[in-house]
Every structure is written in structure tokens, then in C-alpha cells.
């Protein structure tokens, strides 16, 4: 129904964590969600769910060696995912990035929401992820380099004719955080949610279980569920 690219400009701000956990929360509410790890050179979405190696991967699809049906992995009755390959990473040139849009369009037909996790930076691979989506959800940390990254995502989205859904401020709670109202003013976008910095996010990574499942009462899990509420309001009409 709708494809949302999760982007940041700056790396390491928490795109993959937000992507995985939103997928879990929304699928548990009965929405059909598909996740795509479009971080071609550094896929980590599989790791967040405890998969070190999955076969075949997005790389096989993009190089024409596997069909869409082969690469979609079902994680629950309402959650599916296409993971990347952790081993093959230097072969970006051999992949047909345009096929990413075909894949997300196909997934969109059987999903209420497709979440596309994108690479850091604003190179061709990120552009392909933005093009493969209608909407862009910008993730940032409440600091200056992240804000600059978010502004660059806005520039890219505008060039590609894509709409920005809003902003998620991740790892908040520090004394020197840029407050949400200031983020909204400088970015001219709505802050859809803030997710507190929470050590349980890191431990859930080690456990291979997204924090909303592993530690549902942790601050980050509470915040991500609230963010999911806001996303549903923005995106998804009442359930089937």
C-alpha cells in the first residue's frame, strides 16, 4: 500500500534499529509489513533478527540470480523481510539497483507497509532506496551532524520527487540534545517521535531479538510503540 524509505544522510544514527522495531510493532498489530534491507554494502537488518547468514539475499535478486519469491523470508504471519548478504559487499557495480523498485512494488501489492532500510551517505545505493519508495522517514540523532545529514536527505528527496513523511529523533535524553521544536523549525518537517537512548537497544542486538520484543517495557520500546501510533495515523487507513 505504501513504501517508506528510512534514511538519514549520516550513518549510525539508528535507521536499522528503527526499521526492524517498527516492523515488529506494526506487524503485531495486524498490519502486513515487509522489510527490505537496501543497505547493500552494510546490511545489518538480518542481524537484528538474529540471522547471520540467509540465502538467497537481496544481492541475488539484484544480480538476477533469484526471484522475488525466493528472497522474501517470512518472519511471522504478518512480517516478511528481504535481507542482504553480509559476505558479498564489493560487488555494488554488478548489481542492477533499478530492480530494487520492482521488488518493493511487488511487495507493496501484498503489504500494508513496506519499510526500506537505506545505506548511510547519499550515493547511488541510497538514491535507489529513495526511488524505490513513495515516502521518506528521516532518522536523526539530536546533534548538528545529524541535522546536516537530514537536510541532505531533504535535498535528495526533493530531487527524486519523493515526499518526506517526517522525522524521528533517536537516542534522545542528553543534556545537549537539540529539542524537537528546534528540529522542526530548522528542518521544516514534523518530528513524528523521539526514541530515548537506551542500553537495552544494544543488548537486544546481541540477543538477535528486536528491543520491542526482547524488552517491551524498556524506554526505547515504549517510544517506538508511540512512534508506530503516529505513523499509523499518518499512513494507514483503518485495518482491513
Amino acid at each position, binding site marked *: 500500500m505504501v513504501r517508506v524509505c528510512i534514511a538519514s544522510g549520516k550513518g549510525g544514527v539508528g535507521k536499522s534499529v528503527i526499521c526492524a522495531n517498527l516492523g515488529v510493532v506494526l506487524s503485531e498489530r495486524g498490519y502486513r509489513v515487509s522489510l527490505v534491507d537496501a543497505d547493500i554494502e552494510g546490511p545489518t537488518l538480518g542481524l537484528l533478527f538474529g540471522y547471520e547468514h540467509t540465502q538467497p539475499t537481496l544481492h541475488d535478486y539484484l544480480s538476477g540470480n533469484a526471484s522475488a519469491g525466493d528472497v522474501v523470508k517470512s518472519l511471522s504471519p504478518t512480517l516478511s523481510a528481504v535481507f542482504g548478504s553480509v559476505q558479498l559487499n564489493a560487488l555494488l557495480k554488478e548489481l542492477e539497483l533499478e530492480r530494487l523498485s520492482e521488488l518493493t512494488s511487488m511487495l507493496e501489492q501484498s503489504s500494508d507497509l513496506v519499510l526500506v532500510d537505506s545505506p548511510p551517505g547519499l550515493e547511488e545505493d541510497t538514491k535507489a532506496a529513495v526511488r524505490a519508495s513513495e515516502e521518506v522517514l528521516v532518522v536523526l*540523532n*539530536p*546533534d*548538528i*551532524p*545529524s*541535522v*546536516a545529514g537530514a*537536510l*541532505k536527505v*531533504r*535535498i535528495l528527496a*526533493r530531487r527524486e520527487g519523493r515526499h518526506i513523511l517526517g522525522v524521528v529523533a533517536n537516542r534522545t535524553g542528553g*543534556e*545537549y*540534545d*537539540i*529539542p524537537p521544536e*528546534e528540529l522542526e*523549525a*530548522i528542518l521544516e518537517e514534523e518530528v513524528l517521535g523521539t526514541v530515548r537512548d537506551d542500553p537495552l537497544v544494544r543488548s537486544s542486538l546481541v540477543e538477535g531479538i528486536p528491543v520491542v520484543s526482547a524488552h517491551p517495557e524498556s524506554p526505547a520500546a515504549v517510544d517506538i510503540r508511540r512512534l508506530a501510533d503516529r505513523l499509523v495515523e499518518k499512513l494507514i487507513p483503518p485495518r482491513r
Partner: protein
Amino acid sequence: MVVDDEEDILNLIERILSRRGHRVITARDGREALRKLKEERPDLVLLDIMMPGLSGYQLCKIIKQSRETSSTTVAMLTVKSDDEDKVRALEDSGADWYFTKPIDAKRFARSVEWLLRNPPRRG
């Protein structure tokens, strides 16, 4: 300190901030700003971008690169509202924040007080 080549802006900012108990220093161009910066040591510098002589970008870079002033908080205050300008200010010139004119007096005063209290960090 407010640096702007438009008298009206200097007066407006001075009025908004002095009413809230801040001491406001004004400068009309980069040269005057650099001189007053050394004498007055302001906590915050608000910089217009398009000024005769040094641009706000250049002035910001100078402030951020010289040892005596590098810890001064600098924010742009400009009519330029493109994302590209904001990136240039925050990344290339090292500005700490960016305001777009026109401003809402109440909101602006709140933002200035946030910058004085807890200037954002670079990650």
C-alpha cells in the same frame, strides 16, 4: 551580539532580547563584528549571511577558527531558507544553529535562550 547590515533587524533583535534581560551588542559588518568580538566577548553571535564585505559564512568560519573565539556559539539569522544554505552554514562554516527570517519574537527568544543554555554539540 547581532551582526546585520539592516538597521531594522538590529533594532528588532535588540528590542526582543533586551526586554528579556540580555545585553545586546550590534555590528553592521564583519569588520565591526570582529573588533567588538575581541572587546566584548559575547556568549552568542547572530549572523546575517548577505552583508557587504565579509559574508556571514566567512565571518562564522573566522570566529570558529580563531582560538580566542572558537568556543563562542554562532547562529545564522538570514532570509536565505534553502536546505543547501543551511548545510553550508552548519557543515562548511561551523555554525551552531540557523534561524530563518522573518522571526516570531516569542519563539525566537526561547530559541536564543536554549542556545545560551545548552548549545548543541557536534555528535
